[in-house]
């Protein structure tokens, strides 16, 4: 009865089907097949990525929960823990930008509060095609308003993120949302069933035919037909989720529940089977009790629905009435739909009939794991070949700098974050725009720092180095505000894993990330993999996005990126080298996306961060800002834009390298600091202790940017002009007409 066609529609291979038959000892019915297809989809099972992800370091003294639960958990001290995770909602955001992004926010929030944590911060990493195309503009507009609508309504501030533009994301935007929550260390909750006889309680929104096949959709490559054949799109209800959040935290605080699991991409299927599998129990549910929004829903639809704003709670039967009272207080449904059993199966009843009876372990844990073939792309060597000698470097550098600063990727992102409530909960100490978002932890002296970082072009040209740099850059951002990293989460956005070239990129990126994490001794506590980011066979750049969380023990040791005072010394920590491959400058000025990304020395990078934090702690530096895309010239300009009084600078350089490489090269391991003249000697001797090169390169002040190279003036630009260009670029690009 199960045909090839049905298998194809469920994205299952014949081999996978045979495995299902072997595991359950018979042919599955359609509902059972649907259940397997969801749980064995790439999205839920990580079947292609698992063997690579195992290489990431996941343990450390502060780790309370590594990968494997809804979110990772790190010990913060003072009896507190931070719970954080990142998720992608790329495909849904392409199909319906507003709802796709909004429900992405809803999903990651549920992952956090399912663990017993109150979400205190959201960050979003966004990638779109060029805004010259109205379609991309509409996608961006929808995505940003969707995030704004959901996050603002929930009262969770969106405090940071990144927005990057490149043609490869034109029909495949990347929408990765990160959330961090705060919990009491001894009051964390997990997907646990407890003992047989415990009640299975459905809470939250009613079930409709939303996104049936959504999880399967997220794992299928995009083709032209997606433009027309749109699957059932889910609509988010942030108001309901806000009630759900409060009600869930209340039943947890009152100790009324045993376990809890959100109904995310795979709805009832995922929540029921995972809770049982993690506790080694069985579970029985009766679909007749599931609150339904639409008429005549069949078991297949009810089990596979992706309706949002729902949770599954396990409670001792004695507590059921109290749980119901709490939910009623918040005007929400809470319905007992089944119980935990002594067996090992998921049993589903519908209108008196048993419609599903499969071992939960088969569904959750016995999905095949693939070691997919890996091949380095044939053109990789030619991609990496770059001769910069023929490229002219006689140009108007002031104009080039102005052009870079007004490119949407480097321009001010205020158009985006002004739409996000970034101050609600009154914890935001460093507002969006800085190297990392910084939040205070009420009742302690601590500050938390968070950042999202990724660079697709680096990973495209050298995935291993790109993976290392993504981690290093995230930590550099933390170091610049004075924070040391606690852990990372990551979102790996790649093309079709069935292509050996994509799997090569994937394995290299993960290896690079692993190497960097080991060098810094920082654990990976979770993440998410998004494959099949291709349109008509053309993949996006391999784009890992790192979500790094850091800590500043005392709020007095916070540092800001902007210049503070006229006359302060500008100090460069690190060295300028002639590295132009993979730079934003080459891409923008010459249309070149070749060569190798800058080299990275992880040892130096670690020492640089240690030095930077120590210098901040000792009060030797007044501002710090890391150098990344756009290099030294762009970095200096940003220090000026972030200074309260928009102070200019005068910088003199003496390196014997090409002037354009000096200004716009993206050599790693560099931080721009400012210091009082009288502190420089102390700063320099501290740097020596860490074997980090430091050097005075100029002074803060004046109303212009001035950069001189061995007596030649390279840049001479009015701060006002540069600031206006940088400030208005995105707004202009997004204006209608």
């Amino acid at each position, binding site marked *: 009865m199960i045909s090839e066609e049905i298998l194809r529609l469920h994205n299952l291979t014949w081999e996978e089907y045979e495995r299902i038959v072997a595991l359950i000892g018979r042919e599955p019915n359609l509902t059972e097949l649907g259940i397997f297809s969801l749980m064995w989809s790439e999205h839920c099972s990580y079947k292609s990525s698992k063997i690579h992800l195992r290489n990431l370091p996941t343990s450390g003294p502060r780790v309370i929960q590594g990968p494997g639960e809804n979110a990772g958990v790190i010990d913060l001290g003072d009896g507190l823990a931070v719970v954080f995770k990142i998720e992608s909602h790329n495909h849904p955001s392409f*199909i*319906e930008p*507003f*709802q796709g992004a909004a429900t992405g926010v809803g999903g990651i929030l549920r992952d956090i509060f399912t663990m017993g944590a109150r979400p205190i911060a959201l960050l979003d990493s966004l990638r779109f095609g060029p805004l010259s195309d109205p379609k991309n503009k509409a996608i961006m507009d929808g995505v940003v308003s969707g995030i704004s609508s959901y996050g603002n309504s929930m009262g969770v501030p969106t405090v940071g993120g990144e927005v990057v533009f490149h043609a490869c994301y034109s029909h495949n935007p990347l929408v990765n949302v990160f959330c961090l929550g705060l919990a009491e260390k001894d009051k964390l909750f997990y997907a646990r069933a407890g003992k047989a006889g415990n009640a299975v309680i459905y809470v939250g*929104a009613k079930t*409709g*035919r*939303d996104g049936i096949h959504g999880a399967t959709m997220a794992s299928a490559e995009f083709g032209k037909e997606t433009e027309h054949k*749109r699957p*059932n*799109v*889910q*609509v*988010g*209800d942030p*108001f*309901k989720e806000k009630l759900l959040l409060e009600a869930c935290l209340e039943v947890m605080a009152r100790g009324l529940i045993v376990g809890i699991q959100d109904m995310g991409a795979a709805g009832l299927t995922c929540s029921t089977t995972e809770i049982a599998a993690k506790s080694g129990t069985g579970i029985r549910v009766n679909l007749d009790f599931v609150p339904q*929004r*639409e008429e005549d829903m069949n078991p297949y639809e009810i089990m596979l629905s992706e*309706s*949002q704003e729902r949770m599954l709670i396990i409670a001792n039967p004695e507590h059921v009435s109290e749980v119901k009272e709490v939910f009623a207080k918040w*005007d929400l449904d809470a319905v007992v739909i089944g119980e935990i059993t002594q067996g090992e199966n998921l049993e589903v009843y519908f209108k008196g009939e048993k419609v599903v009876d499969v071992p939960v372990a088969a569904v959750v844990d016995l999905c095949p794991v693939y070691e997919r073939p890996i091949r380095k792309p044939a053109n990789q060597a030619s991609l990496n070949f770059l001769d910069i000698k023929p490229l002219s470097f006689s140009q108007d550098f002031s104009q080039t700098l102005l052009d870079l600063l007004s490119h949407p990727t480097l321009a001010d992102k205020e158009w985006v974050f002004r739409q996000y409530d970034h101050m609600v909960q009154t914890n935001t100490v460093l507002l969006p725009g800085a190297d990392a978002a910084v939040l205070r932890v009420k009742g302690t002296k601590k500050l938390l720092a968070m950042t999202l970082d990724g660079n697709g072009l680096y990973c495209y040209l050298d995935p291993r180095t790109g993976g290392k740099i993504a981690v290093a850059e995230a930590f550099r951002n933390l170091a610049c505000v004075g924070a040391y990293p606690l852990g990372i989460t990551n979102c790996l956005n790649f093309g079709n894993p069935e292509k050996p070239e994509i799997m090569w990129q994937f394995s290299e990126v993960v290896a690079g990330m692993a190497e960097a994490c080991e060098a810094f001794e920082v654990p990976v506590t979770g993440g998410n993999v998004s494959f099949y980011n291709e349109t008509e066979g053309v993949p996006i750049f391999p784009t890992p996005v790192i979500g790094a969380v850091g800590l500043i023990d005392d709020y007095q040791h916070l540092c800001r990126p902007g210049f503070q005072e006229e006359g302060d010394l500008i100090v460069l920590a690190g060295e300028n080298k002639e590295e132009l491959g993979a730079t934003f400058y080459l891409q923008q000025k010459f249309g070149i996306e070749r060569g190798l990304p800058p080299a990275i020395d992880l040892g130096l990078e670690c020492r640089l961060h240690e030095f930077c934090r120590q210098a901040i702690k000792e009060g030797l530096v007044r501002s710090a800002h890391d150098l990344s895309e756009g290099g030294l010239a762009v970095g200096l300009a940003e220090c000026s834009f972030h200074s309260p009084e928009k102070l200019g600078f005068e910088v003199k350089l003496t390196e014997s390298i090409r002037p354009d490489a000096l200004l716009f090269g993206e050599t790693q391991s560099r931080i721009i600091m400012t210091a009082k003249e009288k502190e420089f000697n102390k700063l320099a001797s501290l740097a020596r202790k860490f074997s980090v090169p430091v050097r005075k390169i100029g002074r803060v002040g004046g109303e212009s940017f001035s950069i001189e190279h061995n007596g030649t003036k390279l840049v001479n630009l009015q701060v006002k002009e540069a600031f206006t260009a940088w400030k208005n670029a995105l707004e202009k690009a997004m204006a209608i007409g």
Partner: protein
Amino acid sequence: MKVRILVRLKNGVLDPQGQTVRHALHVLGYTQVKDVRQGKVFELELEGIDEAAASRLIPEIADRVLANPIIESFDWEFLDKA
């Protein structure tokens, strides 16, 4: 010439607005209200165009700009053809 375009969520698509209004009406005692769907209305004033052309134009505008065809459908009518 005036036209009115009604844009509504497609059947089956969750309507949090309508549901919230319905809940509020029930709490206020208006329990006769079984269901509420909320949508948008646009009233357009057209000029320099005849009825036939308008009949082609309006669906195009509605589909491209006023409605989100993925989750919404629309209806339209002339209010006056002057």
